[in-house]
């Protein structure tokens, strides 16, 4: 037994020590730190599928300037320090031309910091914390909207729809970068319109009981109830407990990933009716090319793409476009600078929408660098109607008419 174990251990070590399969030579390498194990692994997998499909399509059409492209995913286990290690390794060992990915904001900040120091372009596809593009990192670009831009569609809705401006609002949000940023952004806007905030409540992620919180909210009798939840279970329980306690606003408005997934309708049943979701943008559903992409993706993988897949798929096209416009000489440092210059001139449309990187001021006064200037348009208000999430505002992206005020609660 002992000998067997030693043998197993030694052969395991040899297996590890043997050179890893070499990457295909002479490809244009894109590095993507993603969580492939650990709590965020399901998200890493979404991006892997999305990158894979885009790479396959581009290479099938002859690649970029005659060379094939390759996305090299490396696992950071959703740990910040490991994300820095992985970024460093992709840049100095794997010698990628450009980075993308990251998934969560904490890890993306580390990757951005490393990319900035080692002068390698990092094109962000999903992480939303404002600080990633508001600290003057000229090597960091972002296609997706920042956290503080997420509530834009909701802001437009209450401004543009007659009589929709809240008379008062309660805001509950999870205690994460994401939750906090969105709540701050929404509250800043409401305060600018002189809407009193009757409740301002933060809760820890993955809470199990929101009844005490909702009892407090009910006492304030808010005209609008704004709820921010990253976690799906939080979104479900917030809505459920608000309705059970009898909070009766004119609108239940959810922000964050938790309110945009099908489980919400499945778990809540009729209680999900009319709940708004200021959902993450996943392309304009009325656009035929976006529709075609949805179908193609579903045919290939058997799932309908959502924000993550759309973002991951689009970013490969954004990077490929910049690579196409760069004449690369083989000197890594010079090539990375050439690619950065090309990214600065990006002006194109993907399934995600229009992309052009620029420097501008965000809704909370953050000074963005290389943030997609079309980001404020990439925010959409959707509503759960008969178990389906449908875009309702702005009009140009609407799939159906909104129901407002909420007709399921007694006031």
């Amino acid at each position, binding site marked *: 037994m002992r000998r067997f174990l030693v043998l197993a251990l030694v052969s395991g070590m040899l297996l*590890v020590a043997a050179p890893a399969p070499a990457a295909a030579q002479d490809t244009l390498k894109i590095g993507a730190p993603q969580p492939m194990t650990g709590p965020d692994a399901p998200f890493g997998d979404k991006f892997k599928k999305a990158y894979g499909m885009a790479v396959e399509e581009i290479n099938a059409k002859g690649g970029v300037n005659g060379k094939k492209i390759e996305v090299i995913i490396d696992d950071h286990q959703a740990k910040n320090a490991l994300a820095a*290690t992985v970024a460093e390794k992709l840049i*100095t060992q794997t010698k990628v031309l450009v980075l993308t990915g990251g998934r969560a904001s904490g890890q993306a900040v580390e990757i951005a*910091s490393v990319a900035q120091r080692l002068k390698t372009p990092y094109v962000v596809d999903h992480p939303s914390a404002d600080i990633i593009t508001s600290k003057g990192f000229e090597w960091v670009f972002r296609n997706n909207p920042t956290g503080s831009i997420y509530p834009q569609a909701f802001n437009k809705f209450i401004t543009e729809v007659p009589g929709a401006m809240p008379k008062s609002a309660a805001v509950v949000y999870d205690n994460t970068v994401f939750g906090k940023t969105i709540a701050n952004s929404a509250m800043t806007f409401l305060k600018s319109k002189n809407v009193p905030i009757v409740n301002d409540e933060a809760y820890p992620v993955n809470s199990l009981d929101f009844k005490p919180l909702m009892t407090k909210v009910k006492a304030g009798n808010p005209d609008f109830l704004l709820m921010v939840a990253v976690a799906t279970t939080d979104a479900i329980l917030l809505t459920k407990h608000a309705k059970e306690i009898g909070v009766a606003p004119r609108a239940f408005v959810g922000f964050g990933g938790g309110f945009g997934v099908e489980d919400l309708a499945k778990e809540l049943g009729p209680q999900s009716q009319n709940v708004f979701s200021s959902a993450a943008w996943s392309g304009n559903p009325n656009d035929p090319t976006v529709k075609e992409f949805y179908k193609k993706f579903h045919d290939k993988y058997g799932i309908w793409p959502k924000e993550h897949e759309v973002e991951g798929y689009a970013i490969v096209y954004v990077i490929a476009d910049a690579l196409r416009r760069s004449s690369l000489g083989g000197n890594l440092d010079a090539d990375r600078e050439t690619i950065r210059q090309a990214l600065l001139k990006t002006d194109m449309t993907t399934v995600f929408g229009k992309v052009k990187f620029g420097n501008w001021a965000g809704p909370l006064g953050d000074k963005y660098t290389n943030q997609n200037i079309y980001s404020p348009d990439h925010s959409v208000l959707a509503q759960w109607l008969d178990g389906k999430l449908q875009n309702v505002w702005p009009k140009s992206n609407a799939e159906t008419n909104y129901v407002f005020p909420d007709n399921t609660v007694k006031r």
Partner: protein
Amino acid sequence: MSRAAAVALVVILMMAPPLLTANSFLLHLGITMLLWTLLGASWNLLGGFAGQVSFGHATFFGVGAYATMLLYLRLGLAPWYGLALGGLAAMLVSLPIGLICFRLRGPYFSLSTLAVAEIVRLVALNWEALTNGPVGLLITGLPSVALGGRVINWESKLPFYCVIAALAALAMAATRQLSRARLGAYLVAIREDEDAAEAIGIDTVRAKVLTLALSAFFTGLGGGFYGFYYRYVDPDAVFPIALSVEMVFIAVVGGLSTVVGPVIGAVFLTSIGELFRERFQVGHLIFYGLFMMLAIRYLPEGIWGSLRRALAGRPRAEPWRS
């Protein structure tokens, strides 16, 4: 080979990598290993010698990291002062924690450290005026510093390597001193039988609180170094339970209450972690876990403990128990 020679050899090996390679990724791995060495050695002071198993050392790491970052961002204090003050801050925080938690023994003590770590994490998460809450603190550039007429290049790995190697060596020296000091003897007595130690007149609470303060100081230095090296701290990165547990692993796998153990543990775990990750990409944690199980089952004294015993030709000792 005498023990002193072995220790000297290990210290020389620790300092060697920058002379042998300029590859920045390898130096980065070296820095990671030395940071883990420092943390393993810090934990070892309390866990190894005194047998007080703390699952809450991330608290001191996080306090050190935040203190150093805040001193720099708010007051512009240069890195080295900040590092030392980060260590002191962690030490101060450890005093009330020690006085409360050391009323408990064995598993109750371990659980209370776990609880305190969670409380401190929540404070960091919610005390936004001080810590910036979940958004965290980011340094975008380090101040230029001249040393002996030469400006230090913070973009290279070398200055960081030198700092962390010095800190790790310092922690190891402290371990060695402790093992020879009166306090070290007290701790061993406490570890073996706390009632007997008390009966012969050792002020056990005082001895434990002092050791915790020392251990917290070095852990805080590690936290401060993390802040400066990675340039970004948020509560989830510097206060997680996983971090405390990793410190325990380093000390246990390397060899409890030994000077060299933590280096061996850190080098070993960091390299196999990195190798498995590169090799298996998704399944690597299974192999890592399997390896840990084998190590704990067959090398209960840790790698260095077993090696040392084999070198001295002594029979297999009774594994250490708390």
